[in-house]
């Protein structure tokens, strides 16, 4: 923020419209990017940030509106053209070939790449770039061997290798630990200092405050405003983003919880490739307690959840629910034992996308009255119960016969959580329950979780979102490579400490 950006406009977008499936993702959006600035694009999920970036990067073409690049009107037909003009984007989902080396990925699609690869030269360039921007990387490593953070580095270096003038980073911190995030911010400032322009997409206010020169806020596909970061205060940015004042709910401190409801002892669960993904985890959850599991994605969270709900057989250890050993029970037996589970993938696992909301709300309870009588379904019960739940949990957009996949993410998640709560769970296992939700929906889902906590439900909250974990958990566990590497009461937890533990630096964290 010390570096003053120049006044030269690198990019200007005027009145850009873009619709998907009848929904306006961008509606008459204006956006100006100065040369040499870090420009934050702030907005809730679904506000149109990624769409705007993708238009700039040539992935989408706008339905209407103009794009000016260095003062000239341009139409990028595809990302390749944009890249040739010096606009590069790091997508949320990386576009690297996982079987190739870092250097080979550098060469891929590069205009100088001929039939033969000059491996040596690329290796040298990659290493030098890495040193220069403090993003060290082994050019000979294959992508699949790298961590998510390292893969992101490769994406950024790859664009720098192409010498882009405009670098777009779409939610880059979502996959990083706080420490990695800080290192990235340093790199971003360095690039801006060199006269490159950086677009930083985020919905996290503190990050935006910290790293950007200017902020453009999008809401519902429209530009709400653009301000110099120094002039904006956090509360005001939040209001621009959400459209109202909003404070997300957090738990109140509880001194004593009830009896142990879920007891996990030395649990081992195999991963997809036979290796153990959960390697001896033990913890207890008491009635009314929320245990948070923090960790970078891919450290055994999925297998832990699968092992606990019966979707995958643990290879060793035990799980006791309310005094009964349920280690090797089937999924159905887990459901019957009043164990609720909200999986990470809503439409991929939690809901049947093509069935109606009513049917999805009966997905687990359909086997018994009122949903069925003997072998026969009771259509009126589906309708009545569905109406009641939709009403009670404020699930919007529901219409008879409408497949649930056409609801918005927040309403999907409310339906999913509502169904699990309706099963009157003793134990509730949640994976990233507010991931991808807008603030309003996040508020509602958090309130539901806290209400269940107050009712005495033992809750396991597995998440990568530290804000959420800190706001809801009574106790925090950190998972790293399938093991618990740290445990602390919420009061003692900080983002920094959790971050160090999440990246496996146990000594530093305890120091």
């Amino acid at each position, binding site marked *: 923020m010390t570096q003053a950006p120049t006044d030269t406009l690198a990019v200007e977008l005027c009145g850009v419209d873009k619709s998907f499936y009848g929904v306006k993702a961008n509606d008459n959006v204006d956006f100006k990017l100065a040369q040499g600035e870090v420009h934050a694009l702030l907005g809730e999920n679904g506000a149109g940030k990624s769409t705007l970036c993708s238009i700039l990067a040539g992935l989408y073409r706008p339905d209407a509106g103009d794009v000016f690049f260095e003062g000239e009107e341009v139409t990028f037909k595809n990302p390749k053209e944009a890249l040739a003009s010096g606009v590069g984007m790091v997508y949320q989902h990386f576009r690297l070939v996982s079987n190739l080396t870092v250097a080979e990925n550098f060469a891929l699609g590069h205009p100088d790449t001929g039939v033969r690869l000059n491996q040596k030269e690329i290796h040298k360039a990659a290493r030098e770039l890495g040193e220069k921007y403090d993003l060290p990387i082994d050019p000979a490593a294959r992508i699949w061997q790298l961590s998510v953070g390292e893969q992101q580095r490769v994406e950024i270096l790859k664009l720098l290798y192409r010498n882009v003038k405009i670098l777009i980073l779409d939610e880059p911190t979502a996959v990083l630990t706080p420490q990695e995030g800080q290192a990235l911010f340093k790199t971003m400032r360095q690039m801006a200092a060199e006269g490159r322009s950086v677009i930083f997409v985020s919905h996290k206010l503190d990050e935006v405050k910290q790293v950007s020169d200017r902020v453009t806020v999008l809401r519902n596909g429209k530009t709400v405003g653009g301000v110099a970061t120094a002039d904006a205060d956090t509360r005001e940015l939040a209001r621009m983003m959400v459209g109202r004042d909003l404070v997300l709910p957090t738990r109140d401190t509880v001194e004593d919880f009830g009896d142990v409801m879920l007891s996990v002892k030395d649990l081992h669960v195999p991963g997809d490739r036979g290796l153990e993904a959960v390697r001896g985890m033990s913890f207890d959850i008491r009635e009314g307690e929320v245990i948070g599991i923090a960790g970078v994605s891919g450290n055994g969270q999925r297998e832990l959840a699968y092992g606990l709900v019966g979707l995958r057989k643990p290879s060793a250890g035990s799980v006791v629910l309310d005094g009964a050993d349920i280690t090797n029970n089937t999924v159905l037996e*887990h459901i019957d034992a009043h164990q609720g589970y909200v999986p990470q993938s809503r439409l991929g696992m939690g809901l049947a996308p093509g069935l109606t909301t009513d049917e999805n709300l009966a997905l687990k309870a359909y086997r018994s009255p009122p949903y069925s009588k003997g072998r026969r379904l009771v259509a009126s019960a589906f309708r009545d119960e569905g109406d009641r739940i939709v009403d009670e949990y404020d699930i919007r*957009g529901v219409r008879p016969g409408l497949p649930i996949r056409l609801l918005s993410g927040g309403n999907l998640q409310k339906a999913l959580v509502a169904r699990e709560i309706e099963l009157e769970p003793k134990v509730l296992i949640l994976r990233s329950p507010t991931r991808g939700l807008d603030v309003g929906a996040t508020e509602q889902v958090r309130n539901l979780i806290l209400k269940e906590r107050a009712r005495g439900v033992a809750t396991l909250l597995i998440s990568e979102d530290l804000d959420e974990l800190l706001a809801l958990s009574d106790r925090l566990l950190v998972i790293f490579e399938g093991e618990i590497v740290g445990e602390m009461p919420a009061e003692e937890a900080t983002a920094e400490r959790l971050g160090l533990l999440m990246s496996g630096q146990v000594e530093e964290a305890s120091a």
Partner: protein
Amino acid sequence: MTKRRFIVEPRGLVSWKVRLGVPVASVLAAFIVAGIFLFLTGVNPIEVYSEMLDAAFGSPRGISETLISATPLILTGVAAAIAFKMLVWNIGGEGQFILGAIVASGVAIWLGDGVPSILMIPIVIVAGGLGGAMWASIAAIPRVYLGTNEIITTLMLNFIALALMNFLIFGSSSPWRDPEVSTFPQGRPIPESARIPEIFFRLTGGIFIAIALAVFAWYLIGKTRWGFAVRIVGDSSDTARYAGIGVARKILTVFLLSGAYAGFAGGLFVAGPVGALDPRSLDLGLGFTGIIVAALAGLHLIAIIPVAILMGALNNAGPSLQAIGVPTATVTMLQGAILIFAVAGEFFINNRIRRPDIEPDEESEVTPVLEEVEPA
């Protein structure tokens, strides 16, 4: 940059008017396009269509013949539809149909004359279903437990079933072969008591049995606990697993049920107009046509009934067209055109086209989301 002139977007909720209107329009469009083609080849399409209409529905006998042809198609259509709904790509309806006919006629011959019709007919039809299910199981069990590709296995089993039938009649002195006829091998007639009585010209009561079985399938899938679980599995097997449903068993059962329905068709055909295991009467591609019927009906188990009647009418029109000098291939062309238009029509059922400057009405307020799948 200029504004786009049209925007294609999905409809949120599809009203029954659209759901019914689009397929009807598709069929009409197919007839019109095929009519233009006929006209260009020097044939009067009006003459062709009136001849077809007359042959299929113009006389009581024509209607009876149309319904006779529709009877097996209803069942092979249901067989294909229930499998496809579950993403089970059973294209072995042909083989399962033949096996149904083999087992049904075998049981009828084995039981002989002593059993009264009231028992015999149900036994024969059920035997057909068992035969079809058994044949399907050869592909279903490895599909469910070993993950083999059922498209390939069911297709192969079609050829094997046909070879088996030919062997039983042409290649051996099996109990299915008529010992009384030495001039040319043919199927031994099943006992009269196993034949479904004719009610209207050649039409037997089989049409009612087929319709009842289709309605039963609709009820089973749509209105029962088991059917609900099946629909969940068909929609998302991961979700079904998550909801505590035994996915492998459900897929297996549906696969077998699909085979059984094709087998019912074989049994009904034998007990109805054919009356013997007669390769010449059974090798008509009725199993394959069932796939087309199912596709045209949008996999809707009740819509299959009228679609099967339409296809039955088209099938029967072929020889009548020859009599007025139009090649029989016209009928195949029409069937193809109808299918292509129906598939294209499906697009208009699920999507709408509007001008960008006209805002959508309330129907599309719903926000579709592009949900990410959790990486495996």
